[in-house]
């Protein structure tokens, strides 16, 4: 049953969509090409000028994400937590793992175990050095989750202990909130930097920023690992 004229209507719709995309692309281009990046104003100027003095963090992005806008990051982590929990709630009760039809070959099975350690080390490096080099809790956590994904794909019947994942996640979230509350009690504002700032470029510098980013890394890593495990678990 073909409806007459559907093809034609679709073509008209496509042209219309194309014109809209072209218009917004042109608008974006005109906005971006007139940005004056050498002459920032307002809040951005404050961040760029006072970052070293306020936080002693070599990476300005990290000090904005974790320190100046730390409350937003708490919200972001909460959104991710809710998404992972929601997925778990939808997929729970369907846990029937069938045998994989094609097994991974022996090289992959044995090679993936030492590789997991290296992947986790790299993820930990990314979030521990979040205040010194590009990267941070979200990126490092994702890298760790992909390491566990490799194990789930390579080894048949690999199981992630849900108890450990939940405890890690809860403790990390609790650390974030506790550090924030200590700042509130000692210095009068949530997530205030109550630790000594140290020197720019040292591993132990920038006050509470590394602690919070390590907590975020653990939280994101365990959340995404749990999410992937939930999704892999449901095979008809």
């Amino acid at each position: 049953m073909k409806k007459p004229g559907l093809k034609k209507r679709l073509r008209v719709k496509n042209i219309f969509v194309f014109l809209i995309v072209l218009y917004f692309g042109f608008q974006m281009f005109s906005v971006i090409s007139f940005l004056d990046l050498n002459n920032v104003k307002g809040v951005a100027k404050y961040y760029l000028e006072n970052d070293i003095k306020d936080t002693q963090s070599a990476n300005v992005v990290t000090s904005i994400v974790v320190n100046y806008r730390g409350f937003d990051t708490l919200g972001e982590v909460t959104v991710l937590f809710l998404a992972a929990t929601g997925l778990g709630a939808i997929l729970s009760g369907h846990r029937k793992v069938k045998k994989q039809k094609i097994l991974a070959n022996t090289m992959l099975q044995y090679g993936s175990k030492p590789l997991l350690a290296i992947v986790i080390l790299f993820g930990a490096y990314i979030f521990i050095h979040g205040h010194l080099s590009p990267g941070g809790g979200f990126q490092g956590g994702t890298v760790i989750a992909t390491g566990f994904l490799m194990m789930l794909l390579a080894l048949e019947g690999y199981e992630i202990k849900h108890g450990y994942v939940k405890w890690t996640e809860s403790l990390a979230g609790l650390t974030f909130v506790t550090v924030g509350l200590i700042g509130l009690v000692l210095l009068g504002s949530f997530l205030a930097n109550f630790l000594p700032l140290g020197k720019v470029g040292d591993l132990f510098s920038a006050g509470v920023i590394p602690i919070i980013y390590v907590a975020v890394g653990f939280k994101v890593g365990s959340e995404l690992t749990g999410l992937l495990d939930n999704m892999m678990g449901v095979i008809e």
Partner: protein
Amino acid sequence: MNVVVIITIVCVLLMILASYFAIKTEDLVSAVIASSVVSLMASVLFLILHAPDVAMTEAAIGAGLSTVVFLIAIRKTERFEKDEEQ
């Protein structure tokens, strides 16, 4: 024209081609791979624009993890798009 401009133009053209392919193809696995190419090129662009933090996020989440999530979802449902007119 220096090298950076050429890389930028190649990346943008690849992104446009890949996203068009992702819309048009009926094989959902190909569509997911094409959208992961879009994310990868976007992360190269972020690196050129001096935003390494965003580039890392885009490469890890956009090109890596979300592709995997889509692929797992496709494995559990159907691989090919049904014809809309039938």
